């Protein structure tokens, strides 16, 4: 009994776990949308070299890239409320916020690299017909940079889906938490965690497929 592997248990557990996938995907989607907005802001601040703010942005990026996501989540959820009750938030919000800040730092760098990779002559051509830098960014540079950045941003999205599993440490009832619960009540640890691994794998394969389709579409655009 001890060493046997209950294959059927894995199959039975899959539908149960799938029901918790919603929370996981909600965290990943919100986290990604917010991270994208924040990352774009950070990247633009750095590209335009806006005084003072650009250094704050660099500091922000350095901190959130330089420390583990788990530590950041603990700081946000368990740490901040100690400073002020204003920072009290539910576990789901803390998880989304943590994912947002963490991934925005990485995504900002890849957006910035994509912008800087666009040939300087494109900006000059915009300026030469009387556009402002901001107009040039919006109409010409960002549309081109987004094509360059899309593959890496999609990678971060996929990475983010996997990283939502850390939210169980804050007590968010997502699929990892459910798997953990099932494991400790049935003592079928291997089966439970294998089941959750399989689900993550399927989801990642699905989004990898979408990523390839998206890249294909983008490449034939112009």
């Amino acid at each position, binding site marked *: 009994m001890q060493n046997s592997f209950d294959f059927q248990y894995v199959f039975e557990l899959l539908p149960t776990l799938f029901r918790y996938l919603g929370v996981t995907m909600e965290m990943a989607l919100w986290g990604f949308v917010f991270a994208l907005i924040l990352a774009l802001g950070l990247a633009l601040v750095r590209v335009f070299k806006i005084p003072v703010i650009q250094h704050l942005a660099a500091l922000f990026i350095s901190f959130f890239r330089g420390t583990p996501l788990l530590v950041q989540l603990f700081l946000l959820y368990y740490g901040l409320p100690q400073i002020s009750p204003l920072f009290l938030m539910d576990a789901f919000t803390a998880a989304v916020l943590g994912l947002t800040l963490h991934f925005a730092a990485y995504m900002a760098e890849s957006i910035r690299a994509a912008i800087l990779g666009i*040939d300087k*002559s*494109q900006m*000059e*051509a*915009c*300026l*030469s*017909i*009387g*556009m*402002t830098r901001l*107009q040039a960014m919006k*109409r*010409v540079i960002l*549309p*081109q940079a987004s*094509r360059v950045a899309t593959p890496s941003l999609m990678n971060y999205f996929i990475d983010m889906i996997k990283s939502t599993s850390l939210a169980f440490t804050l007590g968010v009832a997502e699929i990892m938490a459910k798997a953990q619960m099932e494991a400790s009540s049935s003592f079928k640890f291997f089966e439970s965690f294998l089941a959750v691994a399989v689900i993550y794998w399927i989801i990642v394969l699905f989004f990898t497929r979408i990523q390839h389709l998206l890249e294909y579409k983008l490449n034939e*655009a*112009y």
Partner: protein
Amino acid sequence: MIKISNLSKEFGKLAVLKDINFTVEKGEIIVIIGPSGTGKSTLLRCLNYLETPTTGKIQIGNVDIDAVNHKQKEVTALRQQSSFVFQNYSLFANKTAIQNVAESLITVWKTPTSEALKIAKEILVKVGLADKLDAYPSRLSGGQQQRVGIARAMAAKGEVILFDEPTSALDPEWVDEVLAVMKQLAVERQTMIVVTHEMQFAKEVADRVIFMEDGYIVEQGTPQQIFEQPQNERTKSFVKRALKQH
């Protein structure tokens, strides 16, 4: 209409433009010639403030700007008075031919999109690209791209179009179609300042030729004066060499 006074430009210790002064009348066609590395491109780029001059004043139309003390608003206003045709076309890669041409109207002049596209189409038809309206730059030949580049500059409503060696990146087979468009503009008395190595074009089209060397304007005059009776020794030897190549 255009007045350049005491213009100079240094890149670090390298003085590239030295005390440049000249004026251009409305409808005048100016060709700038001179050896490589003498600051011709830098001069044009300064007129469009793609490079910020070290000192000097530039006046185009009703915009007047002093290099030493200028605001970003004035720079944008000055740029709206001129447009630029680049050696390497520099078309917006993410936009079709017609979108490239309409862009300044839509974004800078706030022309309604349908109106802007109509104007853009008329200009593209004029430069012989009626069948390429919706083509992306990557699908166009060099000559076609440069004609879109000229069309884009024409649409920008500036007082003057600046051309920096518009044909020198082209395969020889495409040069004539681009020069033909420029000649047409000259016939219409579009004010132009053209940097080029095409001496034949300069002879035929220019009202005035400016010979630059080493950051200075050495000599200027009608094509007849510059090509047939140059006064300065350096103009003489440059012109002699340049004409021999053709």
